[in-house]
């Protein structure tokens, strides 16, 4: 009996020991070895990003030229003034526009510059005098009687960041300074809306964060045409020669690119990287048959058929297989001798001066007629040198549209100086930088918040250290960008926003983030039950048995005592 008792005791302690081992060592070990590695993400900072309050600050300098203010008014000019405009775009995004205006009178050298005969020369002279920082605007108020602007024009916007504004209120004796300033306010507002950002542009740039359907039709058209912000773009210039037997075309594209396109791309360097290449395609035809129009004695392409031109050609245009950047294609088509000259007609059946058309987010096509270069009895093939300045003029304007410089028509009373050879005026570039910075900030914040949400929802995804690092650096850069926008440093803000967006894209599109393919709970049980059940059943049963014996033992003891 004692032996049985000892056996029973041994059995009991064995069962208890095994149970203890399983619970104390086994369960934690199993838990640790089956958990997915998830590096720590700065969740608190990310949730801050969900509600984005952007403040955009513009530094405006208003310079009064001689003759606009009386001497008493000049003494009372305030040094600076701040004006704020608040706009709540939707429940998570708010905008605040701050215009910090500083007033001063013109210096002697500036007065000399303003004495130039034409506005363009005055603008050039002023540009050499001062160095304006990125994002700021300088407005020179000139007297009403000034001859710099034509009579009906009130504002002249130059090539750099300066504007000449004709003062409406003549320096009437008795008109106080506040009235003068108040009269200038709406005009200055208009100038700033043109030269700097305006509400539609910024709202359009925020579309990534907003629910669809919030933007207006016009801003939608603009946003559809320009490419979204991307770290780089590929630009390809192609010459299509469908008729090499008759036309032997020469185009000096390298020199033309150096002279006309690269200046613009160099200026755009803070925005994105560009890679440019060119090619010549022979026997490439347009997919549409042009119709002969006897009245113009030319072949015509109507506006509706233009949409079908691009697809057959696109199959033959190559693209760089190594990069995933968006591609802009600019095609120069020289019609074959049978179908020359070829002109494009718009909706109103009128000839188009540029003889070119473009497709949003794709590029442009220009038709270049060479039938005037040779007569009927020349010996074929004819050598033809293409006038690259005409071609590049069209391509440059199309390129500007594709890159996001809007066709801002001048508001009434404004004269906008065209950009000329550099391709883009400084203030146009500033406009683009404002909208790009806002767009980058919006996209980066949307990416990070949705990534954090996704990682929360799907517990199975492994979060590696490099992703956590990317997210952390994206959040830091984003906060820096927002801070710089608040401070008014546009160039730094753009740089930080580019860092933020590239880090957030890299984190979001990391190949390791594909979640372990759908593991429903019932499948998990199906895996664990055959492993653990055979082991756990004896342990549980023996524990129960021990427990019952202990109970019994206690009951006996109590009965004995009683």
């Amino acid at each position, binding site marked *: 009996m004692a032996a049985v008792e000892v056996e029973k005791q041994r059995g009991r302690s064995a069962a208890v020991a095994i149970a203890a081992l399983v619970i104390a060592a086994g369960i934690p070990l199993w838990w640790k070895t089956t958990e997915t590695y998830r590096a720590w993400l700065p969740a608190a900072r990310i949730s801050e990003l969900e509600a984005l309050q952007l403040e955009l600050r513009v530094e405006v300098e208003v310079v009064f030229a001689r003759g606009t203010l009386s001497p008493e008014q000049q003494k009372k000019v305030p040094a600076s003034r701040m004006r704020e405009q608040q706009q709540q775009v939707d429940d998570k995004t708010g905008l605040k526009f701050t215009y910090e205006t500083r007033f001063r009178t013109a210096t002697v050298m500036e007065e000399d510059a303003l004495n130039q005969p034409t506005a363009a020369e005055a603008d050039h002279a002023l540009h050499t005098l001062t160095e304006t920082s990125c994002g700021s605007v300088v407005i020179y108020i000139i007297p009403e009687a000034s001859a710099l602007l034509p009579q009906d024009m009130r504002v002249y916007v130059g090539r750099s960041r300066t504007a000449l504004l004709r003062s409406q209120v003549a320096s009437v004796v008795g008109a106080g300074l506040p009235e003068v300033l108040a009269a200038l306010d709406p005009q200055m507002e208009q100038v700033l809306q043109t030269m700097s950002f305006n509400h539609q542009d910024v709202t359009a740039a925020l579309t990534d964060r907003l629910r669809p359907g919030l933007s207006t039709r016009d801003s939608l*058209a603009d946003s559809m045409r320009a490419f979204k912000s991307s770290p780089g773009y590929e630009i390809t210039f192609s010459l299509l020669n469908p008729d090499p037997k008759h036309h032997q075309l020469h185009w000096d594209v390298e020199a033309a690119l150096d*002279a006309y396109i690269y200046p613009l791309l160099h200026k755009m360097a803070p925005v994105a990287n560009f890679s440019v290449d060119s090619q010549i395609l022979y026997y490439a035809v347009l997919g549409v048959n042009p119709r002969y129009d006897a009245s113009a004695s030319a072949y015509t392409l109507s506006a509706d058929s233009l949409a079908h031109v691009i*697809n057959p050609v696109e199959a033959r245009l190559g693209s760089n*297989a190594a990069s995933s950047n968006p591609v802009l294609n600019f095609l120069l088509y020289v019609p074959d001798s049978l179908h020359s000259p070829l002109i494009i007609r718009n909706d109103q059946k009128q000839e188009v001066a*540029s003889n070119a058309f473009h497709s949003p987010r794709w590029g442009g096509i220009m038709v270049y007629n060479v039938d005037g270069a*040779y007569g009927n009895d020349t010996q074929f093939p004819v050598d033809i040198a293409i006038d690259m*300045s005409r071609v590049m*003029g069209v391509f440059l304007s199309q390129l500007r549209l594709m890159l996001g410089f809007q066709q801002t028509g001048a508001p009434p009373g404004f004269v906008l100086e*065209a950009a000329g050879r550099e391709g883009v005026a400084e203030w146009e570039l500033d406009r683009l930088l404002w909208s790009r910075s806002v767009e980058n900030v919006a996209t980066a914040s949307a990416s990070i918040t949705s990534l954090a949400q996704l990682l929360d929802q799907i517990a199975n995804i492994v979060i590696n250290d490099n992703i956590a690092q990317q997210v952390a650096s994206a959040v830091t850069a984003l906060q820096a960008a927002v801070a710089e926008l608040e401070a008014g440093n546009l160039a730094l803000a753009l740089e930080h926003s580019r860092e933020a967006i590239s880090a957030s894209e890299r984190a979001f599109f990391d190949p390791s983030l594909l979640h372990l393919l759908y593991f429903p709970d019932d499948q998990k049980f199906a895996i664990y039950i055959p492993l653990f059940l055979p082991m756990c059943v004896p342990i549980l049963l023996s524990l129960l048995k021990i427990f019952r014996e202990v109970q019994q033992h206690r009951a006996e003891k109590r009965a004995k005592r009683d």
Partner: protein
Amino acid sequence: GWKRGSSFLPGIDVTDTKLSTSAFLLLHQARAERFFRSDHTNNWAVLVCTSRFWFNYRHVANTLSVYRSVKRLGIPDSHIVLMLADDMACNHRNPKPATVFSHKNMELNVYGDDVEVDYRGYEVTVENFLRVLTGRLPPSTPRSKRLLSDDHSNILIYLTGHGGNGFLKFQDSEEISNVELADAFEQMWQKRRYNELLFIIDTCQGASMYERFYSPNLMALASSQVGEDSLSHQPDLAIGVHLMDRYTFYLLEFLEDIHPASQANMNDLFKVCPKSQCVSTPGHRTDLFQRDPGSVLITDFFGSVRKVEITMETINLTPHTETALAYVDQLPVAQIIHQKPKQKDWHPPDGFILGLWTLILLVFFRTYGIKHLKHIF
């Protein structure tokens, strides 16, 4: 006229163009009108055949028919991601190699001669499909294997193979569930990787695959409801297998009548293959789609009709001075192209073989006697 060799005028001078307000208004009007039938600027298509083995010939034929229609209507290869799990055209059991037919009279060879398959054979897996959709591909993936869509892209996704209630079988070894698919679409929406998406699936119980969608701007069509099987069309006795599924057969017939300028809309697509022809009941889902299906053109998804605008503005540039191009002194070709000297084949020294045979003969005669010599000479 311009002749080669003419010199340009020196001096750099640029004239200005100033836009007037009337041109500005005209610009805006024309621009706004042209754009707003739909707001996409490019089209993409992801066409997936998920089954392998010869007897699943019809699934490859299905996918290739849609591929053919989509290419014909204008979407270029660079915008199509074609995934075929097996090669039927060059299969050993194909009695007509290099062809994939859609009809038993072999009227239409959907394989054509310019098929570009992006994911082939064992590369067609659930993981790769989800990676293509979400964009989470390794950096070494070439452009042709990526879906580089943006927020103004309309995407057509076509899946075919063997499926069941809530899943689609890939390669006979794994499956994708409707929850995963819905999550993938949601991730695409979060990153604004599509403007509108049309999802077509031709499998058994196909409608179960679009039950779980919850992202906006999705329209879905399936060849059969839950509990129904999608049937194949007809076998070909010469090839020995069923050539196409019914739904896609009638879809192909419908699409053959569409041309790039056609105005057929989605309501016509919903009517393709009624129960009398298909035996199963095709279904569709449009509640997540913002526009009315009657205003959505077939070519919005199957074709690639571009929006174009006339370029009204040009910049006047005057020709620049031709700078004398200085060419670097050219190296001789042999220095530029470093070639290893061509290795001549090694021959043994002259007379070696002759001497070797003489030696052999001498040894022979020495061993067996000189009397054999007369048999040689």
